[in-house]
């Protein structure tokens, strides 16, 4: 269960790590955006100042013209036209004369040229409707003690343009006013100029007059100053009295760092999941191997118990020599053998439980114990067999059955009474090791199937010096590496040759995996 906590811990670290990364990235990106806005606004200021120099040039040029080339003020009409034509940034240029300067023209005289879309309109601008004597640019230039005067932005009713004006007065050597030269710039021109200094497509700007009126907006969104949703910078454009507000929505910051946050987050998350799964797998493997280890230990103990049941105190005297071996395929198996002596009689059993492993082993130990218990009380193999069959058949839901051969051999006379329950017939080798033969017998049925079955008992004589070889089908069905079965014929040849039969079978199997328990019992009289 502990790997779950590792998961949670890793997720916690991830969240904290990502949170920190997000905050740092967000701050850095915000600072970067602020710097960009600030930088672009400075550039815009520089550029604007550069263009506003046009105004000083225009004034200088008109002054020059008036001082050197002008023969009649009407020539200023052409001159202003030439100026507007020459300076694409200038919206209009005009020269305003004091009252009744040109009596024929009336109170106002003001040659003027103005850019109107693609054409330039040149006219005498002064009349009652355009009383320039009251205008800010006129009064400003008149009263300004400095070289020129920049007006606040104002609305030009004729051309429906918001403009701002640079004006300068011209005086004669006595200090009397000759005229006021003026050049206009339109706010829409300024807007176009600033458009080039938006640091990002998402950035918007607005221009505000000193009275707080919004003069122009880039795009259709108005940056909201004081809102947390915008990163805003405000600068006053010098020397004109217009505030430039540049803003970038904060969502832009998130969008610019989004990939840098989400990608590592995804990668880390994936990493955590993969590592988590690996840890889980390792943990399970560990638990599994611990479980297997425990099971193996139990099986080893079971093997010791099972092998402990099998007798190893083989009778060996002048009358009889018994030997038996049991090789379980797994730690525990279903083969069995047992024997005991009563005077000259040797009672023995060999058997094979159907099935493998622990279930068969449990049945095997029950069978051996039944044989021992019944052998004490009963005096014929048939009776023992029938009692064992009755007990083993009673409530046997797993349908496990046992083939068994029980014999009672008189070691002195060689007379053997036996009963077979579906087991392979034992082989008899004669005293000179010349011939081998299976004992003729009635197979009956295996133990455990039908509790009331009536077994047939038989009798034979084993000649003195002969050997009785009992075995389970694990011997005849042993397969070698080529998957070929040992078979009865080859087995009988092995028996006839004598020697260590178990070793002979092992040699036959070679490197192949044994598929069944192997049990061998030899009784020599």
């Amino acid at each position, binding site marked *: 269960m502990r790997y779950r906590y590792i998961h949670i811990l890793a997720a916690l670290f991830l969240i904290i790590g990502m949170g920190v990364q997000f905050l740092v990235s967000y701050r850095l990106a915000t600072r970067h955006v602020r710097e960009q806005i600030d930088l672009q606004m400075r550039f815009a200021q520089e550029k604007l100042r550069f263009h506003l120099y046009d105004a000083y040039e225009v004034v200088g040029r008109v002054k020059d013209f008036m001082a050197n080339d002008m023969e009649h003020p009407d020539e200023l009409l052409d001159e202003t036209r030439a100026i507007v034509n020459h300076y694409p940034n200038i919206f209009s240029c005009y020269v305003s004369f004091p009252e009744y300067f040109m009596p024929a023209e009336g109170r106002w005289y003001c040659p003027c040229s103005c850019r109107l879309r693609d054409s330039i309109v040149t006219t005498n601008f002064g009349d009652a409707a355009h009383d320039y004597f009251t205008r800010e640019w006129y009064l400003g230039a008149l009263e300004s003690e400095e070289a020129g005067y920049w007006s606040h932005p104002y609305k030009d009713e004729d051309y429906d343009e918001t403009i701002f004006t640079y004006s300068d007065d011209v005086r004669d050597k006595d200090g009397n006013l000759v005229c006021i030269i003026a050049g206009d710039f339109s706010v829409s021109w300024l807007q176009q100029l600033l458009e080039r200094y938006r640091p990002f497509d998402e950035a918007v700007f607005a221009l505000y007059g000193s009275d707080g009126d919004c003069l122009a907006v880039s795009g259709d969104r108005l940056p909201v100053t004081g809102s947390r949703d915008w990163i805003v910078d405000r600068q006053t454009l010098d020397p004109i009295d217009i505030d430039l507000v540049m803003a970038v929505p904060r969502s832009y910051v998130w969008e610019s760092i989004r990939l840098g946050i989400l990608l590592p987050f995804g990668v880390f998350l994936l990493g955590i999941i993969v590592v988590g799964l690996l840890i889980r797998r390792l943990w399970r493997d560990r638990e599994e191997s611990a479980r297997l280890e425990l099971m193996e230990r139990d099986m080893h103990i079971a093997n010791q118990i099972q092998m402990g049941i099998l007798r190893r105190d083989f009778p060996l005297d002048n009358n009889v020599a018994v030997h038996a071996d049991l090789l379980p395929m797994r730690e525990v198996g279903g083969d069995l053998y047992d024997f005991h002596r009563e005077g000259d009689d040797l009672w023995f059993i060999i058997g*094979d439980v159907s099935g*493998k492993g622990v279930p068969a082993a449990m049945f095997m130990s029950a069978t051996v114990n039944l044989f021992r218990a019944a052998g004490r009380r009963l005096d014929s193999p048939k009776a023992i067999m029938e009692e064992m069959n009755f007990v083993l058949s009673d409530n046997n839901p797993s349908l496990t059955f046992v083939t068994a051969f029980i014999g009672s051999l008189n070691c002195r006379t060689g007379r053997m009474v036996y009963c077979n329950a579906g087991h*392979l017939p034992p082989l008899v080798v004669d005293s000179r090791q010349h011939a081998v033969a299976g004992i003729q017998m009635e*197979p009956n*049925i295996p133990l455990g199937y039908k509790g009331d079955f009536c077994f047939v008992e038989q009798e034979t004589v084993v000649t003195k010096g002969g050997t009785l070889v009992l075995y389970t*089908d694990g011997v005849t069905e042993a397969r070698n590496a080529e998957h070929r079965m040992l078979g009865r014929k080859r087995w009988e040849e092995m028996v006839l040759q004598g020697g260590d039969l178990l070793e002979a079978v092992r040699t036959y199997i070679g490197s192949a995996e044994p598929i069944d328990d192997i049990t061998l019992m030899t009784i020599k009289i």
Partner: protein
Amino acid sequence: MIQISIESNGQETCVKIMGELDIVATTNQTDELGRVLALADKALEMDCSQLEYISSAGLRFFMQLKRESEARGGSIRVTHLNEDVADIFRMSGFRNIFQIE
């Protein structure tokens, strides 16, 4: 390993077992053998003409089939045993349990 084919001719269901019915088959092919056990209520003909070999594990399967058949009112005929397999049936006493033809 074994292969099993099942054919029904109305009155009797013929189960043909082919190959070697040993511990490997009974351990690894429980699904196939389970299909045969599911037919235990029918009149079965176990056609063993191509059953090459049977071990005690295979005999246990036959015994299970017999028990199921008895419990569910079916019947079993074992037919066409080859010599080796017939020998095993004889020696293991299964001749006393099955109707062998």
